[in-house]
């Protein structure tokens, strides 16, 4: 048996190619598809645009929420502090601690602000 990875050409190649081409040529591309495609694409367009806008808005809001928490509770940059660092504002300590911990954890997991919202 021949080695299957060789660059062989088979003597039957022209016969197989011709038969398969003739077979697919018996089925011309249906003409009505283009109209249906464009109709569906037209319907898709506002949905896609809306979906993109929603996603952008969601991430924008999450980023804003993160910045708000930072301004309210943090006295040091998030990543410079550790859970052992005592917060300046005792009332806010729990939140700072949680936020701090979550951010440190999430930064390792690569999910960014998502855990802050959770």
């Amino acid at each position: 048996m021949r080695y299957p990875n060789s660059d062989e050409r088979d003597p039957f190649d022209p016969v197989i190619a011709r038969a398969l081409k003739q077979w697919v040529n018996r089925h011309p591309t249906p003409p009505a598809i283009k109209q249906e495609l464009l109709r569906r694409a037209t319907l898709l367009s506002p949905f896609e645009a809306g979906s993109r806008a929603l996603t952008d808005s969601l991430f924008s809001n999450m980023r804003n929420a993160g910045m708000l928490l930072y301004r309210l509770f943090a006295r040091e940059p998030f990543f410079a502090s550790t859970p052992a660092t005592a917060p300046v504002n005792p009332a806010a300590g729990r939140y700072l601690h949680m936020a701090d911990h979550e951010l440190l954890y999430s930064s390792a997991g690569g999910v960014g602000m998502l855990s802050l919202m959770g």
Partner: protein
Amino acid sequence: MIVREDRELVLSLQQDDLDALGHLYDRFKDMVYRTALGITHDPEEAADLLQDVFLRLYRFADRIDPDRPLQPWLYRMTANLAYSRLKRRTRLYKRLRDFAYSLTLESKPAPPKLLEQDEQWRWLEEALAGVPLHQRIVLVLYYINDLSVGEIADILEIPVGTAKSRLHYGRHALKKRLGLNAEMLKEVQYEIS
């Protein structure tokens, strides 16, 4: 008539230009349809795939690099979608289709000669359908689309050696099913020359 380049059309498509989608469809529809038909051996399924491929082209246009040829992307999408669809198709579904097909044949008797030709083409379809799917995709790209083994490997994102191997075993399986053997070789060579 001004022929717009693929790059320009893809850039327009990225700006939600439906006209560009229409131009790209006109340019590549036959290529996609033939490939889908070869893999699925089902005109209806191929028509669905044709539409699906171009809808995805529209949806994911912003992920396409306009400086690279579009054809490999279309081939890849067609092969991947056909592969997923055929894998989902259950045996029961196939039996139902065959049953429906037999009913259609019974209700509309065709002229004997036409029926004979149809039988020959069905024989070819069945031979191709009997080749394992991953080998069939390579056969379709090689024989129907005239792509080289290197191009096929690039499209399917597989090593060249794997593409060659799939071509080898796919061709072997198809020849066996078609009954092509060494004894017929002289006759075939005579016919070609």
